[in-house]
């Protein structure tokens, strides 16, 4: 009796519990957070807010409009690449995955993702419609390996109330520094007048934070960071100068310390510092916060691209894209995927409400986008944004390595040139060991 029950149970387990369903299934894997509690059932894209909210709602809507397709959504912890690697190694990758454009070359180089031209064609998306920055982000060795979804850069998010208190407002606009010396001077003045830090920075568990600053100002000076696909050059006077300033900010307490991203994000909302150099993606949430009447940020929020401190105006940018891991798929599944990509492309404007720059030139030009708050201030990014050369692989791992060393340098745990030498050595070793 018991034996039969057990045997039955096992058979049940092995068979799995899924009911028969012959609709094509697509597995969509994304980061951006889990917000099923707030948006689990919403299909009203226009009413949604935040990256998570908008994307969740978009997918809900796609499911509602396409009952003949089964959509499975994997929400993975940011950035989700270890999982993706595990999934590919497990031989069971998802069908469409959000990926940073800076990471695409790793996967493309190893043949782990497919070129997407056929899918784009099936979705009737003309690659010529992409903005140049977006297209550069997904094109490797002449092939398109993803549908670009946006361009993200870093901005100075500014608390204008505190800037005013510090005497750093002129004509309703924040006064931004034009040189490293000026930066330090502003910061000290700010500190003196407001007794709060000039900068809010995520310095903890956020290796890419400082790396983005470093890349930005190296690119601004046209420094060659990656002379070839297997080497990095970091132990340079330019890099030393940049890192030394960052270290100075820390040493003088001109920035918040010991904050991770959530803490820094919240600190800015609560008005604990003047400027938060963080991504375009916070534009939406902060703008919403500035609209709340009882917020410390109420009516006192502005953004600007990173100021020119060294060299010319520039910004290290990246972008999100939808990639397709290499796998065998049925024509029905491919058709479903194409339909999904086409659907997403249609809503690129809604995505840009998060603060990211749209990937489609037509959206960037559209009055609707232009009408969004602060977008005029950041449009310059589209012009000044730079990415690393397409041959650079393992950017995320490299950022991790550099980030660790930068953290040591900036907190004073290591001399600046030792840290940069170590970073260079570690990155080069990583490349040397790559297959």
């Amino acid at each position, binding site marked *: 009796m018991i034996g039969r029950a057990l045997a039955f149970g096992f058979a049940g387990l092995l068979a799995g519990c899924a009911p028969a369903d012959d609709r094509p299934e697509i597995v969509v894997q994304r980061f951006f957070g889990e917000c099923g509690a707030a948006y689990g059932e919403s299909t009203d894209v226009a009413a949604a807010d935040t990256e998570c909210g908008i994307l969740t709602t978009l997918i809900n809507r796609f499911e509602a409009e396409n009952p003949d397709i089964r959509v499975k959504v994997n929400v993975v912890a940011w950035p989700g*690449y*270890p*999982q993706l*690697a*595990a999934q*590919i*190694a497990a031989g069971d990758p998802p069908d469409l995955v959000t990926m940073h454009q800076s990471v695409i070359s790793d996967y493309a180089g*190893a043949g*782990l993702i497919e070129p997407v031209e056929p899918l784009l064609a099936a979705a009737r998306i003309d690659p010529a419609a992409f903005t140049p920055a977006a297209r550069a982000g997904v094109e490797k060795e002449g092939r398109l390996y993803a549908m670009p979804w946006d361009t993200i850069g870093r901005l100075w998010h500014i608390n204008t109330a505190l800037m005013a208190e510090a005497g750093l407002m002129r004509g309703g606009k924040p006064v931004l520094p034009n040189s490293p010396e000026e930066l330090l001077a502003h910061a000290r003045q700010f500190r003196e007048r407001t007794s709060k830090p000039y900068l809010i920075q995520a*310095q*903890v*568990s956020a*290796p890419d934070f400082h790396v983005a600053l470093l890349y930005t100002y190296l690119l601004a000076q046209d420094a060659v960071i990656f002379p070839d696909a297997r080497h990095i050059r970091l132990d340079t006077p330019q890099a030393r100068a940049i890192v030394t300033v960052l270290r100075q900010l820390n040493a003088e307490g001109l920035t918040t*310390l*010991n*904050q*991770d991203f*959530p*803490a820094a994000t*919240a*600190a800015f909302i609560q008005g604990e510092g003047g400027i938060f150099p963080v991504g375009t993606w916070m534009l939406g949430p902060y703008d919403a916060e500035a609209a709340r009447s009882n917020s410390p940020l109420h009516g006192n929020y502005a953004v600007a691209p990173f100021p020119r401190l060294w060299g010319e105006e520039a910004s290290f940018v990246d972008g999100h894209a939808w990639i397709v891991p290499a796998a065998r798929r049925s024509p029905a599944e491919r058709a479903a995927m194409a339909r999904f990509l086409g659907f997403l492309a249609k809503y690129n404007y809604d995505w840009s409400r998060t603060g990211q720059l749209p990937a489609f030139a037509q959206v960037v030009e559209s009055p609707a986008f232009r009408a969004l708050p602060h977008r005029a201030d950041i449009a310059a990014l589209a012009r000044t944004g730079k990415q690393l050369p397409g041959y650079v692989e*393992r950017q*995320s*791992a490299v950022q*991790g390595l550099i980030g*660790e060393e930068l*953290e*040591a340098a900036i*907190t004073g*745990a290591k001399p600046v040139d030792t840290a940069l030498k170590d970073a260079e050595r*570690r990155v080069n070793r*990583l490349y040397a*060991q790559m*297959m």
Partner: protein
Amino acid sequence: MTAALRDRLAGYAFVGPFLLVYAAVLIVPLVMGIVISLHRADLFGRREWIGLDNYAQALGDPVLHQAFGNTVLLAVLIVPPLTVIALLLALALNRPGKFAAVLRGVFFSSLVLSVTIVTLIWRFILTPDAGLIAEGLEAAGRAPIPFLSDPDLVIPAIAVTTLWWSLGFPVMLILAGLQQVPGDIYEAAALDGAGRWTVLRRITLPAIRRTLLLVVMLQTAAQLQLFGQAQLLTGGGPGGASRTIVLYIFEVSFGRWELGYATAIAELLFGMIIALTLLQYWLVTRHEEPRA
């Protein structure tokens, strides 16, 4: 078919299913692991024989050295206090009555939570903005402490989290050990006029020596493999200050795709755990008579 042959077949029929799974899911990967560690191998199937190069690389890898140091520090911060606290608790709770029963339940309870939940809870206890401790400090007019972002505090913070989580199992083991001690030796000791301290030192502790050894061995092996807490609480940060060996294995394998190197580190960890376990066993049992 003779009876003896039938018995043999019966023997294999009974142990066979387990051995099959054991061989397929443990032995085969174990051997595969050793082979892979001798290759420059990536996660997606590319292999190139390089002999012991991965091991040589591991010995000279400063990140691994740091992870090794972190891991050992964690084990040192966790295992001895855990054993002592568990022993004290077990001694105090090894008695009949409702009070002890309820407290036993309380001290066992955290053991059933999964690592995700433990770290979820503790992250929001430790976080300097809005955490439980921060709330307490703020109420007392003090500045919040950034436990998870200070390189000197992060390891102790993970250790405390782990202590809180892991306490129940050793308490349970030691309680079980205490209940094995025959009551009459306590009576004999009482007749001999032994005081509490003497009884503890001369009778109770020697009697549960093997249990304590088991606790220390199991916990050492477990803490040397600490993974979830570090990954979920800090991701190994700040600056690698809380990266453990296993977290490094995870990063190297699934982050950097260097399967061969990751496997070599895993084999080194394997060797280290076996050596430590044997060493502990030898230290505790070398003076004992061989057991009948």
